[in-house]
């Protein structure tokens, strides 16, 4: 089947303005210059309808930038984000509404002066998806979908707990019947027991409405639980992508392996940590060749010189590491 979402050679550069400290230091004679960050660097992937694709990687590797470009709220420097018209025209929505983004912070993403009923119905009324007189009934149904009581419709966001606010954010996103939800650290601010409630909700909504998800998280345990496929990013590039079973059983890229080895796990019990060495390099000045080479235990001279390309190892399992060339005849 044709993918519902195709991302091709997507890149985003930011020019980093000087921070306050750098400006101050410049006054006393240092020479700090504005620099360019390749936040997302030539990223391509495709997503099937109903799939949950997890995106992991360390802080600053470009997950949010990628998510925001897919959601259409940030324009790419180059490359494209395309939805399959066949599969999306059913909802008859403007492209921008096909994708909804759910953010980390349930507190700041809701307008504090609006009642829940207005928060949920604003966009669908504006776009003519529902009539004004359906407002009550519609909002009640959306709340019910996310497991909230409809007698809370007239309340304001501050009258809810963090988990409940996140549910309101999800109800607001669902109100325009999107095809794709981009969840950017959507559960990171919640307590563990509340995280479980929201994760279960996401999975249930996928099953009921065949929603498609890009699920961004730095929590690999959560990614493993929820994803059908995983994309691992490092400094703006995809270094590995695999169906969840291959990701867990035969992770290939040395960075993926290091990540998986570092994940604290409840079921493992007391253990010695043997971490990968080195700092995450500055995205302003990424290492040459394979971005991971300064931290990689297998790095060779070629890794310093030449960026490895993604190469298919088994069905749908791609990894960008020179070691895979040597393994081939």
């Amino acid at each position, binding site marked *: 089947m044709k993918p519902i979402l195709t991302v091709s050679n997507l890149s985003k550069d930011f020019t980093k303005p000087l921070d306050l*400290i750098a400006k101050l230091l410049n006054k006393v004679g240092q020479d700090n210059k504005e620099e360019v960050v390749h936040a997302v660097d030539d990223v391509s992937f495709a997503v099937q309808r109903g799939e949950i694709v997890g995106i992991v990687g*360390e*802080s600053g590797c470009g997950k949010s930038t990628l998510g925001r470009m897919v959601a259409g709220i940030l324009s790419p420097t180059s490359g494209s984000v395309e939805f399959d018209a066949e599969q999306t025209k059913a909802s008859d929505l403007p492209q921008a509404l096909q994708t909804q983004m759910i953010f980390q912070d349930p507190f700041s993403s809701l307008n504090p002066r609006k009642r829940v009923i207005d928060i949920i119905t604003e966009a669908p009324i504006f776009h003519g998806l529902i009539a004004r007189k359906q407002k009550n009934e519609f909002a009640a149904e959306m709340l019910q979908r996310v497991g909230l009581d409809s007698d809370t419709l007239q309340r304001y966001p501050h009258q809810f*707990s963090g*988990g*409940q606010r996140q549910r309101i954010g999800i109800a607001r996103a669902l109100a325009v019947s999107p095809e794709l939800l981009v969840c950017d650290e959507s559960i990171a601010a919640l*307590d*563990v*027991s*509340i*995280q*479980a*409630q929201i*994760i*279960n909700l996401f*999975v*249930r909504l996928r099953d009921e409405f065949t929603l498609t998800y890009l699920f961004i998280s*730095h929590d*690999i*345990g*959560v990614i*493993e*639980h*929820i994803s059908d496929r995983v994309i691992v990013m490092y400094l703006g590039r995809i270094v590995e992508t695999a169906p*969840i079973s291959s990701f*867990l059983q035969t992770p290939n890229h040395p960075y993926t392996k*290091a*990540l998986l*080895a*570092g*994940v*604290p*796990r*409840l*079921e*493992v*019990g*007391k*253990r*010695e*940590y*043997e*971490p*990968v*060495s080195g*700092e*995450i390099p500055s995205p302003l000045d990424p290492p040459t060749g394979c971005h991971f080479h300064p*931290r990689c235990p297998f790095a060779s001279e070629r890794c310093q010189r030449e960026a490895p390309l993604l190469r298919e190892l088994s069905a749908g399992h791609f990894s960008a590491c020179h070691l895979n060339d040597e393994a081939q005849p």
Partner: protein
Amino acid sequence: MKPILQIENLQTHFFTKAGVVKAVDGVSFDINAGEVVGLVGESGSGKSITGFSVMGLVDAPGKIVGGRIMFQGEDIAAMSPQQLQSLRGNRISMIFQDPMMTLNPVLRVETQMVEAIKAHDSMISKSEARARARDALGLVGISAPEERMRAYPHQFSGGMRQRVSIAIAMLNRPDLIIADEPTTALDVTIQGQVIHEMQRLCEVTKTALLWITHDLAVVAGIADRICVMYAGRVVEQGPIASTISQPLHPYTRGLMGSVPSQNRRGQPLQQIDGMVPSLLNLPSGCAFQNRCAMVSDKCLSEIPEPIDVGEQRLVRCVNVGQEPAS
């Protein structure tokens, strides 16, 4: 052997306009020399305030209103300000989630470390103090410490800053370190490095460690014992392995079930419905009653006392033992 830290029925309350917030309300646990104890619980359950109470860092409107904190057999409440001062940073030190709570942004790392050493050893020469600072940075895995120590904190990455604050915490060979979410803000690979260094250092120096976190999996990997807090009380404590494999308190059970695990992929996570009650307005009886599947009449009227269930495990639930632990 006597525990290095004994917390007995600690009560730390905040007297706010809206009423009394019972942030810590009857917390008791011990830490032995060289032991790693994990203090876990949800946001607002009173973990940090427990740590702050030990450090004497609770500010108005907060106040320790009951209980005792004994450090190496001495009552902290009975200490003079000078004694407290020498206790902090010397025999007990604290590491915060945000390393900038420890680091001064306008001073070179070297200056701060030398000052910290001199504060507790006024006889030491500057060059000796410098050498000790440099070695401490080397120990936490900072390469080229000689050069790096001349840098300012903002010239370090987040993970490195946290390592510097660990180095500072270890400078005076404390007997106890209270680490409040020390790796929560760090990426997985950097978290692994920091945990690795802490584990190693504590093993070598026999420093006891109170590791405060909401991340059960981290605690599972490093702690000898675990204390689980809920709404200002330790509801369950015991050795890490048995507590995690066979949690007894309904809250601990729920918590374990809500952590994603590779063994349960594809199944819905167990969830604890409802939410934590307001600390301003706790119900009478067990604070977990509104979310508990085992709730009975007794839970509504009686605050559960810690029950010794053997194997060094304590559980605050009136129904424990009523049902086989699963």
